């Protein structure tokens, strides 16, 4: 596993939008905050820009902007402005040669799961599953989630705890962390960007899905051998869930537990990761200790 270098004051963070469109002003608090933290900010042409459709630019433009940030030796971290949809369309055209020679932090979640997963599966380089530009606005920059990103960037070991949940399964594991958005992880199944979860702590989150589809996606993970040999499972928020006219008849917790009932690894619900505000910075591919006790859940980065 390769851990990109921590950031030092004066280092440069690039902001690019490899997926959906984001107006520049929506990222202004983020830009200001990163500068207040002592970093230089380089704005890629895909933030704001002239796009008039869903994407922040056409595939070539989004690829070129991300590629430039990956290749730019001055850029020490790449913060994705927002997710949405779009990385699947360019992932196979990204040239990771210089990134692999000179690693840097890639920051984001949701659609950026494609990037995290691809980099983990192919290069085993750590990335940051963390808040993006919009999370800085409305005092978010002072909140614990954006602050956790700041700490991760300077090289602090990340460590989190959250209250226990009635459906948790107690236990302990020390293993590399992997995961992200459930819909994207299933979308990547069978492709060159799919991670192998065996022996790892898997975290999952999703937003706006039908309950039956959550069930179907978990079955896919299970049937593709991605749930049976986990070291542990962390469930973030599953927000804005929808149900069919005829109710599915199980909660998301029940759906998940039913899928993994035959396995013995620790499971924790309610972990602060996802689209529901609570979203701590997590380093993928990095070794973490997970402790699920009757009182609390702890996740802390191990020494390497």
């Amino acid at each position, binding site marked *: 596993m390769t851990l990109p270098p921590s950031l030092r004051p004066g280092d440069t963070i690039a902001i690019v939008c490899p997926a*959906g469109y984001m107006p520049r002003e929506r990222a202004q608090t983020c830009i200001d905050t990163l500068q207040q933290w002592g970093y230089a900010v380089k704005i890629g042409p895909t933030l704001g820009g002239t796009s*008039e*459709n*869903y*994407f922040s630019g056409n595939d070539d433009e989004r690829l070129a902007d991300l590629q430039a940030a990956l290749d730019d030796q001055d850029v020490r971290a790449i913060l994705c402005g927002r997710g*949405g*949809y779009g990385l*699947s*369309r360019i*992932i*196979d055209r990204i040239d990771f040669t210089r990134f692999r020679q000179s690693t840097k932090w890639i920051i984001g979640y949701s659609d950026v799961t494609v990037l995290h997963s691809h980099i983990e599966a192919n290069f085993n380089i750590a990335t940051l599953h963390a808040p993006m530009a919009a999370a800085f606005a409305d005092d978010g920059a002072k909140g614990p989630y954006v602050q956790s990103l700041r700490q991760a960037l300077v090289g602090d070991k990340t460590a989190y705890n959250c209250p226990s949940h009635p459906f948790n399964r107690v236990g302990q594991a020390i293993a590399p962390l992997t995961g992200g958005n459930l819909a994207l992880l*299933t*979308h*990547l*199944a*069978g*492709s*060159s*960007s*799919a991670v192998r979860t065996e022996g790892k702590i898997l975290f999952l989150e999703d937003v706006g899905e039908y309950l*039956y589809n959550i*069930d*179907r*996606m978990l*079955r*896919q993970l299970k*049937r*593709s*051998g*991605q749930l049976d040999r986990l070291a542990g499972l962390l469930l973030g928020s599953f927000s804005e869930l929808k149900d*069919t006219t*005829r*109710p*599915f*008849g*199980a909660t998301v917790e029940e759906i998940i537990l039913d899928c993994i009932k035959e396995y013995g690894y620790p499971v924790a619900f309610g972990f602060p990761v996802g689209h529901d505000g609570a979203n701590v910075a997590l380093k993928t591919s990095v070794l973490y200790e997970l402790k699920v006790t009757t009182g609390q859940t702890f996740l802390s980065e191990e020494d390497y």
Partner: protein
Amino acid sequence: MNRKNFLSLLGIGAVESAFATNPVHPPFTARKETPSPILLIPPYLRPGDTIGITCPAGNITLKEIQPAIQQIEGWGFHIKIGDTVGKKDFTFGGTDAERLTDFQQMLDDPAVNAILCARGGYGAVHIVDGLNFSSLLQHPKWIIGFSDITVLLCHIHTNLHITSIHSKMCNSFPDDWSKAEPVQVASILSIRQALTGEKMQYTVPPQQYNRTGSAEGQLVGGNLKTIESLAGTVSDIDTSGKILFVEDTGEYLYSIDRMFWHLQRTGKLDRLAGLIIGGFKVKPDDPGDEFGRTLYDIVTDRVKPYSYPVCFNFPVGHQLENYALKYGVPHTLIVHPDQVSLAEK
């Protein structure tokens, strides 16, 4: 497609000869199918044979399947009603155990010659790994359905090489046959034609974005979202050398785009013999999130690197016009500037 056109062409023999003096352009050489395991084609049904009705996914009442029962009995078949008809576990047609048991006994009952899934919905993936297919292998029988039943069609194609029927199910039979739309009637009658061994042949009008050419290969596919949900699992399909058909309903354009990228990134588009795009009921973009591309743009972009024939708006999917297709059976697809034909070899 034009209804009258379709009805008038139903049953007409091979149309290839009509193209003999008008070669398709650009020239397309159909890729030869890679040697595949021996295909098992279940015996076609004769009058007096029995069709079992079961619910591997969503629930349905006995009353709701009466139109199907009456129609199918009118065709001269007996009906065996499975225990899951009328069962209800929220959206499911009974618990996983009940649906598994019912489907299993339909597979194992030598008196059942075909299994008609009552409806789709969601749930086949819950039982597919629990099914024992040894009796089906010994005595192949037609499995009939679409949508969520794509799980079973794909699984059986990949693992057992037994052909099946992709078609409407019990919930699509009209209550009042006399008032039904002609295309709905034709779609349902096509199930009978497929089951009784007629060579299936469909001719539909051309579409602006079609890519001409001809192809031969096994016909596979189904519901696009369901195909994606099988990726990486033992039920996943290998599409190389085959004619792939896909349909879907209720998906956003961005999601359809993502699923076509998924097909491409999992190697399901590059070695096709041909591609058939069925019905796509697109969910409108949310305001401010306009995707800016049509289904045609999405598909055309993805198949640009390849040269096989592609046709749009084929009458398969979540719509009244949804003809029976023999899944896994070799077909010839001819996409001609004047018309499209799909014919069983």
